[in-house]
């Protein structure tokens, strides 16, 4: 067993670390206030290859393994969550849908601009009545001539309001549903009948936007059926498995930053004539934070490694998603507690992180769904 990080990924993580410290951290507060990432920063990230790193070179990607991608998101996660919420849904969900489920022609057409960050992707599965119960979607697609006509509403779609390419999951056979009745479509901004509805007002994640997407007799050409008709649900599940590793990695990076800030504060904040770090109550909180972070980190790396080996990761991915997101919430709570009053103030990043962290237990499959997946796998006959 070798825990050495390959040299190229050490270089990668240092580059991202420097970028976070030099470019992203200085604007985080501004992004929080203005609720928007400056376009020139997005351009810079695109030029550095942030939008295509795990995809093969021939499609303009960085040919980075899942482990490298996890290390990347761990570093990026140290900054404001809005930055990884720009990149990860684009890479892990939208672009991965094309890569995993698309035909060769679709990969040739969509992957290069998506990897280059010229076209931003969104992943549209969730609906008003289909969150955890993803197979219960109501958006329908009907074939009319050489076109498919989409009707329905997608909810809380990250990057939905700014995306150029949306992977839309729709029902093509009501009776089959998850077993061959759901199909994915590549919908481009500007397709007739597609429009962005309300942009959501959220608890946190300012700078990252989720929106309602409306499909009203939206026309999608036949060649934009992602892969084959009826394969949508399978593609979505595969994509989401891989995405969970990325979410966990970001949670680890964010929690690590909160631990560092807490150590810094504990060492400098003086009460009763001594730094609060001298109090065992504080020390235990710091130790608990460090333990949980390390556990989540190792689970993340191992799951990424298994993915890179081509092994099945459904249970591992569910476990690391649930564990890392809960870890991040514990850590954020302790960070606020250690910081005391200042931890509750808008001027300091702890409060922001506390709000931003909460979503981790909800999106990309609630932790309850993850536990269902884990239990189902544990109880499987022949396990």
């Amino acid at each position, binding site marked *: 067993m070798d825990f050495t990080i390959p040299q190229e990924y050490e270089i990668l993580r240092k580059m991202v670390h420097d970028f976070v*410290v030099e470019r992203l*951290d200085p604007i985080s507060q501004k992004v929080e206030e203005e609720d928007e990432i400056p376009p020139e920063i997005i351009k810079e990230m695109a030029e550095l290859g942030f939008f295509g790193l795990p995809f093969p070179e021939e499609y303009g990607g960085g040919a980075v393994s899942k482990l490298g991608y996890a290390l990347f998101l761990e570093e990026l996660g140290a900054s404001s969550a809005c930055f990884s919420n720009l990149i990860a849904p684009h890479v892990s969900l939208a672009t991965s849908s094309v890569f995993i489920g698309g035909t060769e022609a679709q990969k040739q057409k969509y992957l290069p601009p998506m990897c280059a960050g010229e076209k931003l992707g969104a992943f549209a599965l969730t609906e008003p009545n289909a969150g955890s119960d993803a197979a219960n979607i109501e958006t329908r697609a009907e074939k009319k001539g050489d076109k498919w006509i989409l009707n329905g509403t997608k909810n809380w779609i990250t990057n939905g309001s700014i995306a150029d390419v949306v992977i839309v999951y729709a029902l093509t056979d009501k009776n089959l549903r998850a077993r061959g009745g759901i199909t994915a479509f590549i919908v481009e901004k500007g397709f007739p009948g597609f429009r962005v509805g309300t942009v959501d007002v959220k608890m946190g994640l300012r700078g990252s936007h989720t929106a309602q997407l409306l499909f009203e007799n939206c026309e999608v050409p036949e060649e934009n059926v992602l892969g084959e008709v009826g394969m949508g649900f399978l593609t979505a599940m595969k994509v989401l498995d891989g995405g969970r590793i990325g979410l966990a990695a970001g949670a680890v990076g964010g929690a690590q930053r909160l631990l560092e800030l807490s150590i810094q504060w504990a060492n*400098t*904040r003086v009460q009763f004539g001594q730094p609060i770090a001298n109090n065992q109550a504080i020390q235990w909180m710091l130790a608990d934070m460090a333990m949980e972070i390390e556990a989540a980190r190792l689970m993340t790396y191992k799951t990424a490694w298994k993915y890179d080996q081509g092994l099945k990761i459904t249970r591992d991915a569910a476990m690391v998603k649930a564990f890392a997101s809960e870890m991040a919430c514990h850590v954020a709570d302790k960070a606020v507690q250690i910081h005391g009053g200042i931890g509750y103030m808008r*001027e300091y990043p702890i409060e922001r992180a506390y709000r931003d962290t909460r979503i981790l237990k909800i999106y990309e499959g609630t932790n309850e769904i993850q536990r269902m997946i884990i239990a189902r796998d544990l109880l499987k006959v022949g396990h």
Partner: protein
Amino acid sequence: MPANFRILSEKCDGCGACVPACPFFALEVVEGKAVLYESCLECGVCVPSCPTGAIWTAGGDSSAVAGASGGGGSKGRSIWVYVPGAALGAAAPAGAGAAAAALGSLGLARSVADEQGTRVTAVTAGDGADTAALFAAGADEVFVLEGEGAVPALLAAAVAQETPRAVIGVAAGEAREVVAGAAALAGAPLVAGADEVECFGERLAPKRPLYGGRFRAKVRAADGLIPFITLDRHVFRSVRTDPRRTGQVRHLAIRGTAGSQPLATAPAGAGTATAAPGGAEVRRRNVPLDAARIVLGGGAELGSAEAFALLYRLADRLSAVGGDVAVGATKEAVDAGWAPREALLDGTMVKTCPALYMAFGVDGSPAHNAAVALARVVVSVTAKADSQFCQVADFILPYAPGRVLERLLEITI
């Protein structure tokens, strides 16, 4: 282990008095007993510091040991100080940093030479040097190097010919390049940027900061070699000048030199400054926070953009004497629009490690304090005596920062 020194553990009571006495950091108290490390040079300085007589020496007499550790046979050899002709030339602005530093290095050499009972030789090349100033600052004699080839080669050849005890220069500008180049040609060791030089017999023991000032190292030259030392230009500045002192000027003709070709100077014009002696263009540079030697920080307590702007004036003044100066700001000051975002110190994890950080009206959030944690000397000016930041400051001025700034601008620094 050092052959002639040992700690007698039955006598040692672990008081630690010897630890600061050792110039080579070779002593430490471990589990209640002093431990002597490999780096011991057997100089003997620690012996008298021990109240229980626990440091055993083979010779039994510490002063004899200290004397014996000297370079031997170097008696009468002088201490050389390389001074670029331009630094003290007629064209050099009076009190300019380069001249002050050059004279400061002479001052250090003078005190070493007095302690060791030898002479100071100021060495220069070309005709630019103001020899009267060199004598006044402590030189006993001045050598003017003459010959074909570049200055480093001339200096190296002169060193081979005259075998001085040590060659010293300022770790800045031309002297830094010339002394390093000469050391290379002479095959000699060079301790660069020393900020402390002690004498042990005839041996010089320079200390220098490493790792952004977080550590200090003592560097030793191999036996029988002439050590080259460049000095931190900001540390060795004070010099007792005596205009009545004079001495002999000797023109040293050097033959058969090799090495790098001389630097050509760029033609003047097109808005560029020339490299003519002493004619360096002096202008304000936009120094990044992490490269500055001095950082001035401003916070909310300054109260206005006008008060904050005084920091820039102070920076200009300090840069004339103290090297690169940058102005930083707390988050509150940046948010108030008094300073650009590039000046932000808090939470950006900018790695400043200045020799001096002066904070004006800074209350010291952890993010701010972390950004300046590596500063060598910290001054806090704030009327809020309970400021978090005062806890990490070396000097605290409990007054309104704007008023102190105004006063500082009135004083000649």
